[in-house]
């Protein structure tokens, strides 16, 4: 900054000095300290943010293709970063070797059975993800080497394009001049043309107007047959009404039978009354000849027989009454 001094006292070329500031040196010192503290603090924060002060364990992932993986990218578990790629290199077997530092505090999420995937989407960078199905499994050992599975959306594109190409070829075949679809459409058109004929849809379905005419004639004949059947059913109905009158009407067969049964019932009731009177007489006779044991015994047996007969008659009457439907309900129910 200093050149050779010429002879003679130098003149003092002075530029306008910086305006005086109170406590300038103090303020400058404060600013410099603030500057230094900012720089040092930020560097320390960056080191902390990069995990320099964290205790980590190493995990090695082997991938067929390491494209998209960068140093510093995260390994995520359930969307949360649990590791950071520290180094990528080509292994001796030609695979991509990805070294990941996993903080000890996050290593609990990775187990021996964890699965690791490398996914590349159309938008955004690649993503390394870890999946742990069983959190109770053994912890992932230090320096574990795992194969990484690939989930690449762009890799699906060639297959997708091939499928779409086949689909388009099929569509082209379907829409060709001699395609089945075109033939079907032609058939449909012929069908609709026939349906527009004199016999409508029937002509279209049966294929010719002649067949449709036959069907219409058959329908007319069926209608005539139905009309004659209708008359026949009317006659039959009248015949049935007359039969019903003769069997179930007043003075009909059923009515006469009911009267006979009533008379029989009355006869049997009278017989029961007569036997009851005989029983009473026999009871009196038993009382009178109580002293005569033999006579009494005869009478007792006789009485027992009469009582048995009386019970049989009574049972017969009850049975007749039970079996004879007109004895209980004289109403005749027709279907």
């Amino acid at each position, binding site marked *: *900054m200093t050149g050779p001094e010429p002879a003679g006292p130098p*003149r003092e070329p002075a*530029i306008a000095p910086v305006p*005086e500031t109170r406590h300038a040196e103090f303020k400058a010192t404060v600013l410099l300290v603030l500057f230094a503290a900012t720089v040092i603090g930020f560097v320390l924060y960056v080191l902390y943010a990069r995990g320099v002060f964290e205790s980590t364990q190493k995990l090695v992932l082997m991938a067929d293709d390491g494209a998209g993986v960068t140093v510093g990218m995260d390994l995520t578990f359930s969307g949360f970063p649990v590791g950071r790629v520290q180094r990528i290199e080509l292994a001796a077997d030609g695979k991509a070797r990805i070294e990941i530092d996993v903080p000890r505090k996050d290593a609990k999420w990775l187990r021996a059975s964890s699965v690791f995937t490398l996914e590349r989407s159309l938008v955004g960078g690649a993503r390394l993800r870890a999946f742990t199905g069983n959190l109770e499994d053994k912890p992932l050992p230090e320096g574990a080497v795992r194969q990484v599975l690939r989930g690449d959306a762009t890799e699906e594109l060639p297959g997708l394009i091939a499928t779409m190409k086949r689909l388009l070829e099929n569509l082209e075949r379907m829409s060709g001049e001699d395609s089945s679809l075109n033939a079907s459409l032609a058939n449909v058109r012929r069908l609709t043309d026939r349906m527009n004929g004199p016999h409508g849809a029937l002509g279209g379905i049966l294929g010719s107007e002649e067949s449709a005419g036959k069907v219409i004639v058959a329908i007319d004949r069926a209608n005539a047959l139905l009309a004659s059947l209708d008359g026949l059913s009317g006659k039959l109905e009248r015949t049935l009404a007359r039969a019903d009158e003769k069997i179930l009407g007043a003075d009909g067969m059923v009515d006469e039978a009911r009267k006979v049964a009533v008379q029989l019932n009355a006869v049997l009731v009278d017989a029961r009354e007569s036997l009851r009177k005989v029983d009473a007489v026999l009871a009196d006779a038993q009382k009178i000849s109580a002293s005569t044991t033999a006579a009494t015994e005869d009478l007792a047996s006789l009485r027992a027989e009469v009582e048995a007969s009386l019970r049989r008659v009574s049972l017969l009457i009850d049975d007749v009454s039970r079996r004879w439907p007109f004895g209980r309900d004289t109403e005749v129910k027709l279907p």
Partner: protein
Amino acid sequence: MALSAVASAWRGLRFGGEALAAALSPATYTPAVRSAVARQVCASAWDVLPGVVLVCGLLSYVVIRIVAETARDYGLSAYALDIFVRSLVLELIPLFISLFVALRSGAALGTEVAMMLARVGAQGTRQADVSALRAQLLPRGIGNAVAVMALTAIGGVVALAVAYVGLYGFSPWGHPAFSRAIGQVFEPLLLAGFALKVSLFALAVGAIPVATSLGSGHELRDVPQAAPRGLVRLFVGLALVETIALAAKYV
């Protein structure tokens, strides 16, 4: 014309090198120089610190909101802070601070130097006069350079703090994600490159306006052109440094 430009650039580089060597030499910092440096630092940095912090904060808040909303619309929220830091903190704030200090202090200093040279020229130029002038200019150049570095550091930290608030509010739960993003962006090499770039910006702001004025004519009619010419060269120098930094980082 081309020779003149090359000669001018050489003069600027030479002056910058001499100024840098002097600034790094402890012997330079005599009490008088320290006092002059302190006054210049106060004028260039301390007085404008609140304004710079305010502007950086507002700019950062606006930018982070725009970036965050846009990134969310495209499903790229994870990259919002990355984009913000790479664009604003690493590129725009250093450039903005450098231009601010250059326009506020460098242009005035360049004009003063040109006027002094014109006055000296009118009295007959002597090498001793120019040397003495350089000795007086050194503290002011150092002060401007320190102002650029200090304001850049403080402005960058303010921008990051405002970005955190803009992204996560005042919740402490965004800290792990924020730290991880910062750690991913600021790789050691990038941090060193950033420090070098800001240092070069500071050197350019401290040296180029003065070097340009020292190289201008010693006539009074040369004075009005001295400051604009110095600023233009400073802009070119800053653009050159920025371009090289970007190329080294991304190409």
